[in-house]
């Protein structure tokens, strides 16, 4: 339990430790995925990226606070040429480090240096067994490249972690995707059903599968799991829109996750910047320790003192902590309300409507808004009201 001071801005009131540090080192990306969870106005943050020294300082500070797992992500992290330095520092500090990549930019030379520097594993995103869908959903020709990169990762003795974001366009291919993963020698496969934030929220009606498709995909996954056993670990991340209780988002606000973004903002979750009236700390001004322990932003939704009904008196509140603040805000306009995924939420009809909308052929057929600089610039400049009208606070 935490205690809150006046106005929710209390002095240091946490004894939690940021066990996971996610370094979103750049928002630049050669791919244009329709489901990208990066902020829709990311274009604003591509000019003022942290320097190598600033990243190394952040790594040191977080490690001192107990951070252990480091994810190096983006955008496409390999667009920076200093990942080798970051990796080396991470190993020396005792992190278990993970490069999260689309594969674009991974060369023999670089992977060799990562290995020598002590990078622990590489997570590669794959999209489908067909070239057509891979290229469609990422809006790039990257299919062959991804297979080559998978072989390279394996060849260097890395555990191969494949991440496949699941949506309407590939959910019918789960079995084939798992077979491909097995053939590539994957050690871990994450079938991550699309969560609707950022770009995927804009494209929700075009991406969302039906409940029947998800149930079927889960069944196939379970069968495959039986077959491969421990050789290949398969995670099936259930989409929250189709459950009756929300997820415990990020395992609790400011409980174990800390994210440092390309421009140095320190966030408790990927999409927290959509929340209104929040001033997030930045490593250019504050140390990570202050950000985690003292900053008003990290304390705002820590614990459960901020809750209103029905969460406040809910017997299940410690289980999910009221769900996701960003989802509550994006869908209902009220960041302190129960996550609309919850059937006890007065806003649950918004989820039901989204599911209905995704069955509407007219909405399904709307053109996908791909994640790219031009679209991002238009959204950031408020020039694309047709893209954002349905949701609160996009970007």
């Amino acid at each position, binding site marked *: 339990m935490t205690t809150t001071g006046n106005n929710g801005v209390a002095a240091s009131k946490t004894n939690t430790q940021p066990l996971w540090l996610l370094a979103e080192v750049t928002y630049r990306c050669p791919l244009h995925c329709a489901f990208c969870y990066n902020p829709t106005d990311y274009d604003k943050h591509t000019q003022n990226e942290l320097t190598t020294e600033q990243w190394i300082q952040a790594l040191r500070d977080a490690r001192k606070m*107990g951070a*252990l*797992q480091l994810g190096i992500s983006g955008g496409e992290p390999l667009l920076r040429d200093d990942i080798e330095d970051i990796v080396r520092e991470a190993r020396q500090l005792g992190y*278990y480090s993970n490069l999260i990549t689309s594969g674009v930019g991974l060369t023999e030379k670089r992977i060799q240096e990562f290995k020598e520097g002590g990078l*622990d594993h590489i997570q590669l995103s794959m999209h489908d067994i067909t070239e057509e869908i891979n290229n469609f959903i990422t809006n790039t020709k990257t299919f062959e490249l991804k297979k080559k990169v998978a072989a390279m990762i394996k060849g260097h003795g890395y*555990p191969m972690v494949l991440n496949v974001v699941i949506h309407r366009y590939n959910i019918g291919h789960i079995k084939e995707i798992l077979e491909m993963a097995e053939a590539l020698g994957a050690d871990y496969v994450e079938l991550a059903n699309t969560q609707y934030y950022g770009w995927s929220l804009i494209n929700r009606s075009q991406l969302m599968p039906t409940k029947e498709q998800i149930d079927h995909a889960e069944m196939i996954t379970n069968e495959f799991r039986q077959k491969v056993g421990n050789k290949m670990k398969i995670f099936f991340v259930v989409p929250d829109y189709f459950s009756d209780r929300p997820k415990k988002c990020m395992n609790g606000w400011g409980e174990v996750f800390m994210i440092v973004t390309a421009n140095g903002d320190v966030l408790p979750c990927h999409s927290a910047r959509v929340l209104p009236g929040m001033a997030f700390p930045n490593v250019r001004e504050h140390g990570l320790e202050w950000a985690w322990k003292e900053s008003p932003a990290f304390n705002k939704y820590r614990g459960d003192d901020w809750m209103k009904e029905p969460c406040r008196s809910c017997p299940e509140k410690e289980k999910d902590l009221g769900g996701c603040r960003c989802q509550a805000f994006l869908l209902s306009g009220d960041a302190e309300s129960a996550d609309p995924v919850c059937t006890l939420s007065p806003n649950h009809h918004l989820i039901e409507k989204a599911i209905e909308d995704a069955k509407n052929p007219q909405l399904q057929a709307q053109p996908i808004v791909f994640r790219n600089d031009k679209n991002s610039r238009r959204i950031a400049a408020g020039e694309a009201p047709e893209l954002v009208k349905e949701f609160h606070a996009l970007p």
Partner: protein
Amino acid sequence: MTTSVNPADIYSLARHYRFQWEEAQQCYVLLFPEGMIKLNGGAGEVIKRVDGNKTVADIVTELQQAFPDATDIEADILAMLQLALEKAWLEKRN
């Protein structure tokens, strides 16, 4: 899949797993892709000795010598190793 742990077995940590002491948490941890486990005192002492050379019997003897006041730890050690094996933290070497 689940075989049971025998005294003559030799184990090492599974490939890609890392075991280390954490000053900030004051415990041993096991790190692997997508996850980590904090090991309590006893479990940490067991896993620390899993090195690809010692047999399970060696580990038991060593721990009995290191903690002479603890009674009946053999069953606990075997249970711990069994759990670790089922979770695929360990690989059998012999």
